[in-house]
Structures are given as structure tokens and as C-alpha cells.
């Protein structure tokens, strides 16, 4: 009887440790990338938590110090669907960090939405993670001569709303 109890105990212990390992391994490659550089002094890090986004969702564009209300509204409209924003940026060897980030991102996990390359050599790549045709995460990798930036937007992102914001920005530039 003691043997049986011991066997069951060992089985349950191994099961729980397997569960813990599975839980840890489900963190995506991009989470590991952030974890690698978040404490690195060469990087600037910004994080907007789900709580802050909830607060933004309740804010009125007039309360915010914005010259153009329609642009602020477009930003707030997008922000209310977001649940997290993480930004990493560095001016130290941007080219090397850009290449490393691209190599570490799992192409099975993320799909390339768009790559934009300037004649000046600036590269911007958009990657998305979709579930049932809804964008759940958008990654922006940007490399210029003097800066590398990685942004991760988590939440339900609507490309139409982003396009609306682009139009508002353009309108503002025309004025």
C-alpha cells in the first residue's frame, strides 16, 4: 500500500512539474527577446500596461493636450482595443539588433504583413499574429541609421482604424 501511495505521489509530482514547464515554454520568442534586453543598459524600454490602456479608454480627447481632436480621437479609438504595448529601442549597432530580432522571431508564429524599405536604407517590417482573421498582436521592427526599435502591440488591432489615423495625420500635415 505504501508503495502504491509513493508511486502515485511521484506520478503527480512529475505531472505538476511537466505542467509548470509547459506553462513557461508557451512564452513566445518575442517575449524571450524582450526578456533578454529589458535590463540591458543600451536599450530604452517602455511598457504600457492593460490598466493604463483601460484608463486611456475612459479619457476624453479634449482632456488631453492635443491640437487636433480628430487625430486624438483616432488614437484613442485604437488605444481602447489595445491591451499592452512594449517598446525596446537602442542606438547601439541598430543593424545588428535588427538582424538578430528578425532571426529570433518565429515565422510560424508571426506572419509578415508588410516590409517597407527606404532608399536611405531604413527598414520597417510589420509582423502580425492572427486568430480567426483578427489581428491579436502587431510587431513593428524598425531600423534606421541611428536607431533600432521593436514595438509589440497586443490586443485586437483593426487595420481600418490605423488607416483612419493615417488619414488624420495626413490631413494635419496638409494644413
Amino acid at each position, binding site marked *: 500500500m505504501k508503495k*502504491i501511495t509513493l*508511486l*502515485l505521489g511521484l*506520478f*503527480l509530482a512529475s*505531472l505538476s512539474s511537466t*505542467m509548470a514547464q509547459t*506553462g*513557461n515554454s*508557451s*512564452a*513566445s520568442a518575442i*517575449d524571450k527577446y*524582450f*526578456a533578454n534586453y*529589458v535590463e540591458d543598459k543600451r536599450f530604452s*524600454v*517602455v*511598457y*504600457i*500596461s492593460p490598466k*493604463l490602456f483601460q*484608463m*486611456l479608454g475612459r*479619457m476624453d480627447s479634449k482632456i*488631453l493636450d492635443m491640437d487636433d481632436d480628430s487625430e*486624438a480621437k483616432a*488614437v*484613442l479609438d*485604437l*488605444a481602447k482595443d*489595445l*491591451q*499592452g*504595448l*512594449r*517598446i525596446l529601442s537602442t542606438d547601439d549597432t541598430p543593424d545588428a539588433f535588427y538582424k538578430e530580432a528578425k532571426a529570433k522571431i518565429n515565422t510560424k508564429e508571426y506572419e509578415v504583413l*508588410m*516590409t*517597407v524599405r527606404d532608399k536611405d536604407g531604413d527598414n*520597417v517590417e*510589420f509582423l502580425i*499574429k492572427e*486568430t480567426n482573421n483578427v489581428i*491579436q498582436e*502587431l510587431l*513593428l521592427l*524598425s531600423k534606421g541609421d541611428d536607431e533600432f*526599435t521593436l*514595438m509589440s*502591440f*497586443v*490586443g485586437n488591432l483593426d*487595420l481600418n482604424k*490605423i*488607416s483612419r*489615423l*493615417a488619414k488624420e*495625420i*495626413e490631413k494635419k500635415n496638409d494644413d
Partner: protein
Amino acid sequence: MNSEPRLRELLDKYFAAETTLQEEWELRELMKDGHLPADLQVFQGLFGTLNAEVEEKLNPAIGNLVMAQIEADHAQRGKIIPLQRGYIFWWPRVAAVAAILCLGLWWMSKPAATPENELAQAEKVIDWSKYEPKTPEEAFKITHKALKKVAVELDKGTRIAENMEDLGEMGKVLQ
């Protein structure tokens, strides 16, 4: 009664493998006749042997001898204990049920691998609160800047793609 024609008929059928069991029995009986023509007497040996084999019976004493030997063997090996199924087989069943229950509970409690959950897991490892803006206004400015970059770059990429499509159309017209 002259049974010779019948005997010849049955023999022909026998060698053509067409006789029934009843006819074979009849054939054996007819072969016992001591006044058969010489050409048929050669088959008497064959059917005589078959008759002897059919009539041969196991000596009942052999059965008794075998049983006596088995009992003697058992007596030498000691007492035979019947399998106690309840004792030997209950614990693997309990272990199997426990395993199924544990797997079921784990499956039910397993969080879905959504980006939100992955973000929550990453938050546990990294203390992101250090990198949060202190006020919602500051958070809005950062979000605004980040979303503006996304909108501008996506717009730029879309315009380039549209221009390329136009060039493609021009190429078609020129052809």
C-alpha cells in the same frame, strides 16, 4: 448376392474422391468379403488397414496414468494458490483513473495560448512596472507616437504598393 458390381462402382467413386461417408462405410464392409476377384483383392489390404485404424481406440488406462502423473507433479510442487484478481490488479486501475483525472483537470485549467496570456506570463518574469509611464497623459503621448509610426509606415507601404500596381498597369498598356 453378388456385390461385385456395387463394389467396383464404389471403388471408382472412392478413387475419384466422390464417395460419401456412408458409401465409404459400405465399401469397407464389402471389402471384408473373402471371395473377391483377384484384381479387387489388392485393395483389401488398404481397406483392412483403414478399418483397423478406425477401430483402434485409446486405452482408457493411459488417461488414468496421465492424470495420476499430473496429480503427483502437483503434490511435489506444493499448494496451488488461485489468482486473487482483486489484490493484484486494483492499483494499476487506480493509477490509470488518477492519470486520466489529472490530465482532464490540467486540460480544463490550461490557459489558451493567446497573446494576452503570453503577455501575462512574460509580466510574471519581468517586472514591467519599472518601465511604465507615471501618468495616463504620458502613456497617451507614447501610445500616440507609437501608433503614429505604425500608421505612417503602413500608409507609406500601401502607397508604394499602389504605385507599383499603377506601374504594372502602365506596363500592360504599353505592351
